[in-house]
């Protein structure tokens, strides 16, 4: 099975700082990792590939090479970095368009695996948007995968259970980090990733990306304001018998005109 895994390099912290002026994430000086859901996608691909080939793909600055090398060290066969100033500032839709163009250039594949969502943006949109852009069936929030011939069967995580969905390949799945325990890259894998395997760098022109659909200008989403919600005030615990407390509560609600003073 030939698999394309889409990954994102993210800051290694849940305590992401935001530049109050630009509303953008501050990335400088923070260690970076492969997004945890995406790492599970890599592991899933390694378990599914059999005699196939795994291509790992990311869009990002030149430093994103490090994330691709780690994926190669884990056992992925090829790596592609979509890297061009023209991609900069893309929202999820523009990102999906750029990645779709990259995947069209790759050509042949049976399955595309994405992480459910990135720990920096938390949108969970790029995977589904990518499936739409490529006109593929999609299964999101996948916690278990089985392949059978040209079909793929997956468990979709729901809040209170899961549903089983089957589709023909090619298809796109977004997976959660609960899917598996990603392997550590072995030393031989690291040797290969840094000494033998190459990373292809593709610019917008290389993938015939439509410039009206990529980058900041083409992005329909604008960040209006980013802020930390202010802390809630302390709650009030009423005292007394149930009858007294109920009476007290009604009086307080009337005072605030939440219920009518009849």
């Amino acid at each position, binding site marked *: 099975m030939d698999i394309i895994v889409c990954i994102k390099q993210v800051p290694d912290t849940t305590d992401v700082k935001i530049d109050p002026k630009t509303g953008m994430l501050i990335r400088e000086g923070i260690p970076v990792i492969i997004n945890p859901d995406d790492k599970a996608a890599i592991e899933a691909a390694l378990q599914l590939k059999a005699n196939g080939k795994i291509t790992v793909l990311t869009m990002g600055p030149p430093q994103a090479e*490090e994330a691709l090398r*780690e994926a190669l060290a884990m056992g992925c066969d090829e790596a592609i970095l979509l890297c061009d100033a023209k991609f900069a500032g893309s929202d999820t839709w523009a990102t999906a368009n750029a990645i779709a163009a990259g995947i069209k250039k790759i050509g042949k594949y049976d399955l595309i695996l994405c992480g459910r969502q990135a720990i920096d943006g938390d949108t969970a949109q790029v995977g589904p948007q990518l499936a739409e852009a490529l006109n593929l069936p999609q299964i999101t929030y996948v916690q278990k995968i089985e392949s059978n011939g040209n079909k793929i069967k997956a468990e979709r995580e729901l809040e209170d259970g899961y549903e089983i969905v089957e589709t023909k390949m090619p298809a796109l799945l977004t997976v959660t980090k609960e899917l598996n325990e990603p392997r550590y890259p*072995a*030393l031989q894998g*690291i040797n290969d*990733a*840094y000494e033998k395997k190459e990373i292809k760098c593709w610019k917008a022109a290389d993938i015939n990306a439509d410039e009206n659909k990529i980058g900041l200008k083409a992005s329909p989403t604008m960040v209006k304001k980013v802020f930390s919600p202010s802390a809630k005030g302390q709650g009030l615990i009423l005292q007394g018998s149930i009858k007294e407390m109920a009476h007290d509560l009604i009086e307080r609600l009337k005072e605030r005109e939440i219920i009518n003073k009849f």
Partner: protein
Amino acid sequence: MNFDFTKKQLAIKKMIKEFADKEVKPYAAEADQKEIFPAEQIKKLSKLGVMGMSVPRKYGGAELDNVSQTIIMEEISRACNATAVTMGAHASLTCHPIVNFGTEEQKQAFLPKLASGEYLGAFALTEPAAGSDAVNVQTTAVRDGDGYIINGNKIFITNGGKADLVCVVTTTDKAAKHKGLAIFIIEPKKTKGFGLGKKEDKLGLRGSNTQELVFQDMRVPKENLIGGVEGEGFKQAMSVFNSGRIGIGVQGVGIAQAAFEECLKYVNEREQFDRKLHKFQALQFMLADMAMKIDAARLLCFRAADVKDKGRKYVKEAAMAKLYGSDVAMEVTRQAIQIHGGYGYMKDYPLERFYRDAKITEIYEGTSEIQKLVIAAELLGRGF
């Protein structure tokens, strides 16, 4: 001058640090308390290629540079010293003489098994009368037809009771002193006359195996003489120790770093006199001293590894790294207990284990005093 690791070295550091934190560190306290040999950790390290890190790729190893090997040793030592010494005795002490002095046949026969972790290795030099005076080896190897008959015993052998392969230092000619030494490769499970003696009950590294080896008319094929010539054993053993010293130095750094990290956590949690400990200048001074010394020791270790990687003589650099790394391990772990006060003395915290584990770094692979003699001999341009 460049103090940065390469991208590949950083990738190795990232991998091994994560591995050490998740797969090694959580088991260190129990391994110490119950003397549990780190077989599981060694199995996992084998799968990652770490047990073959010093072995050339054509024999199945990862063939890492010395800086990378030093990175790995520091991270594993930070997590668990019993695991670190088990790994070090194999990947450094045992693989080194075969990689550097073995015949092609020996390399082909033994290195793939050592590199994959199928075989665990040990290196046996120390005897009751041969410690710092390494030349005074009493274990004899006498030529007999197409083999040798070995008699004697070895003490304090790391991995001794667990090893599938032991490099044993013998003398084929006592009168020739250091020129009479010869190292043989022994496969204990396949060799008659190989026996195990006392398993040591140690101050620290309690999860690791340290045992006596007893050889009674043990017959070894002549093909197992490392390098195929007698009289080379002393030179080979000294090369093993030179190289191994960088590993022990950085083991000290790893222990010290672990103790320091506990202190940083503690001073931000513990309150006395209505203030967090980190508000007290006396403790700030201690933390600053610890951090500086750990860094200095670390730099000495990586400098020695770098000089070795560049193919230059590194005897003095390795001895300095070992001497200072072990000094710092003792000093920092002692201070770390002091910062923790009574809690530091108790087994609920890892500080007393670090302190016990640290002490051996001043002793094995050449005591601190031997390191000073080595450094002085290099400075003065003569043997010690």
